[in-house]
């Protein structure tokens, strides 16, 4: 089908070769519907061609094949044929019922045709030439009866156990793949892994279009399933090993490292839920979509910081996913309640999803996958993982790559991630977490300060990309009203917290008080002196006034006397003039 398409287009393209850029005929793909697989293969398995899914026992080959078939029938309206060689159709139906796949129902709707091919070597006697035409006939019949587009052969190699002539079987299998291709049937063939080969009978030699390898390994008693697309002719594909999970919803593959650093950047800020911490971050809080690491020793307040953020997020009507590896939901609700953080209300409202599971429950990749699935389900604005260090089931290297993938994934969604990290007391944080630190936008560091028989908590912002954050160390105090950040006393190379800070503050207050008292005294003294001086001035001034008065009196008296003298002289001269003119008695009297 695909071939005829290509042939039809080619002549047209040839004529206009020079005028328009030639578009390379891309390989048509059939989506499997398996979450994640279609991403790593850019669309699914090659359409109309066979794909081999191989791996050891219990690696999930059959599950992969069945999901491809069922999802094809249900989501993409492509009916499928299931030909099983190892399990009966009843067994198969029961096996996948737990995934919510009802094969019998699909069969009734003519979306699925199941055929169990039993290969029983003990029943068969070979007497000359034969071929596997019976298989072709059955397949043809199955395909025709429902108009199938997809075929699953699980596990085709079982025919090798039933027939002795392997040369003939190989020829027949080659013919079968040709036959499937000619009919444009998108086929998934499962095959058991061989010794040093992908498949026990070398099927991959015949199916060269797409080979998927599944692996189930156990490290430190923790199992991890991985998938690798070994070959995909004519298509780019993720070549890494991708972890995958089989759960109630079937297979999920995590397309881990296909992400690029091109996530959208948000200028929007989100409050941390602790006003004092917001104040340290330009007064606005974290950036939306950033990754925040809260690290510290045990009991330094990491979870409380995280819970504050969760509460704040939900208070704003946004959604939050809280993944806890240490506390169960009930325990966290109670404990956070004791420091004034209400997690119960947002949980009841459905805004906060609290998920707790044991870190040893799964391998690293499984944790990651679970978080992925939860994020897809809950669609949170904020994801909190408390603590992320509990994920170190594998090596540090593995954890680093896992975290990177997780952070990338969350960033690409614009989801703010808050991770807490537990540090050993004697370890140097900047050394041990150098791997994570490069991935983190805002790093808040909580540390214990043990002094004067007390253990107190300090908080500082180690780094915060894209903002002028505070460089201060603050004391982290938990109360019934939640977390408060108090300024610490810094002096003589030491940081004082707790009662040492309190006593220092008291001392400072006392000093301040005495200083104030002294000033007051000085002021009063001055007041008094001023009053004294002013009194003196008054006295002097009144003395002066007195003197002036006296002077005035003297002057007046002088004036009066002078006048009197003048008057008397005038009178005298008058009298003298009279006596000189009449008798000499008057002149005598006047001179006496």
């Amino acid at each position, binding site marked *: 089908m695909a071939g005829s398409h290509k042939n039809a287009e080619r002549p047209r393209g040839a004529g206009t070769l020079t005028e328009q850029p030639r578009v390379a005929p891309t390989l048509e793909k059939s989506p499997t519907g398996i979450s994640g697989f279609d991403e790593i293969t850019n669309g699914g398995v090659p359409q109309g061609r066979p794909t081999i899914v191989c791996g050891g026992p219990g690696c999930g080959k059959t599950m992969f094949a069945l999901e491809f078939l069922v999802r094809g029938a249900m989501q993409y309206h492509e009916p499928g044929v299931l030909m099983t060689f190892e399990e009966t159709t009843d067994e198969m139906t029961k096996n996948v019922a737990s995934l919510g796949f009802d094969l019998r129902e699909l069969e009734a709707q003519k979306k699925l045709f199941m*055929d169990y*091919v*039993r*290969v*029983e070597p003990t*029943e*068969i*006697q*070979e*007497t*000359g*030439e*034969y*071929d*596997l*035409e*019976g*298989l*072709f*006939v*059955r397949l*043809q*019949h199955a395909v025709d009866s429902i108009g199938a587009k997809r075929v699953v052969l699980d596990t085709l190699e079982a*025919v090798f156990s*039933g*027939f002795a002539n392997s040369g003939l079987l190989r020829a027949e299998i080659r013919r079968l793949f040709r036959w499937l291709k000619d009919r444009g049937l998108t086929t998934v063939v499962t095959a058991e892994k061989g010794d040093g080969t992908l498949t026990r009978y070398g099927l991959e030699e015949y199916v060269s279009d797409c080979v998927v390898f599944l692996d189930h390994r156990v490290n430190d008693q923790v199992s991890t399933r991985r998938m690798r697309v070994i070959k995909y002719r004519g298509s780019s594909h993720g070549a890494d090993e991708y972890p995958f999970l089989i759960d109630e919803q079937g297979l999920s593959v995590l397309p881990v490292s296909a992400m690029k650093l091109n996530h959208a950047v948000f200028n929007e800020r989100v409050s941390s839920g602790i006003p004092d911490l917001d104040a340290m971050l330009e007064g606005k809080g974290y950036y939306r979509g950033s990754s925040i690491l809260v690290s510290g020793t045990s009991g330094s307040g990491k979870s409380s910081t995280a819970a504050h953020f969760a509460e704040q997020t939900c208070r704003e009507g946004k959604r939050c996913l809280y993944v806890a590896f240490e506390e169960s939901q009930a325990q966290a609700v109670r404990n956070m309640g004791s420091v004034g953080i209400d997690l119960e209300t947002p949980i009841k409202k459905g805004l906060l999803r609290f998920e707790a599971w044991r870190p040893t429950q799964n391998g690293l990749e499984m944790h990651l996958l679970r978080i992925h699935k939860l994020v897809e389900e809950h669609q949170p604005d904020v994801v909190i993982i408390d603590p992320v260090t509990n994920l170190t089931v594998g090596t540090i290297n593995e954890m680093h790559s896992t975290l990177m993938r997780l952070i990338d994934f969350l960033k690409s969604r614009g989801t703010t991630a808050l991770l807490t990290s537990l540090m050993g007391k004697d370890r140097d944080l900047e050394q041990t977490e150098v791997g994570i630190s490069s991935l983190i936008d805002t790093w808040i560091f909580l540390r214990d300060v043990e002094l004067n028989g007390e253990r107190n908590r300090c908080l500082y912002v180690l780094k915060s990309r894209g903002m002028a954050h505070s460089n201060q160390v603050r004391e982290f105090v938990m109360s019934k009203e939640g977390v408060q950040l108090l300024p610490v006393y810094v002096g003589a190379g030491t940081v004082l917290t707790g009662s040492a800070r309190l006593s220092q503050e008291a001392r400072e207050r006392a000093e301040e008080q005495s200083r104030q008292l002294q000033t007051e005294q000085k002021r009063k003294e001055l007041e008094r002196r001023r009053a004294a001086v002013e009194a003196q001035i008054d006295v002097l001034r009144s003395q002066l006034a007195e003197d002036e008065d006296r002077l005035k009196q003297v002057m007046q008296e002088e004036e009066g006397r002078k006048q009197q003298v003048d008057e008397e002289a005038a009178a005298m001269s008058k009298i003298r003039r009279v006596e000189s003119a009449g008798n000499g008695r008057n002149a005598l009297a006047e001179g006496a």
Partner: protein
Amino acid sequence: MTARVKVVPKRPMSTRHLNGSAPSMNGEFFELRLYVAGQTPKSLTALANLRKICNEHLDGRFELHVIDLVKTPQLAQGDQILAIPTLVRNLPQPMRKIIGDLSDTERVLVGLDVRKNMEAR
């Protein structure tokens, strides 16, 4: 097509009687089915070989159905037919399957458990 019609001219159905006769008292009765897919050389050879063997060794104590899966593909599932041609011994129990063009007469006889019967007689 024509060749097969010559071999079994009685019924046009793909499931048909060949040389059928009443069960003999001398030995066990054989109910045989030969599955073929169209008129391939292998099928024709098998049918010819089978006729010969039946006539020589089973002495009328058999019933043979030839089933052409091209016409009735749904019948392949029941007897779990994979290889073509396949001869199924339905009776006597247990069921036996012999695949191939039946050119190795000895093996066919062993496969059908006829040899034993003959010796017993």
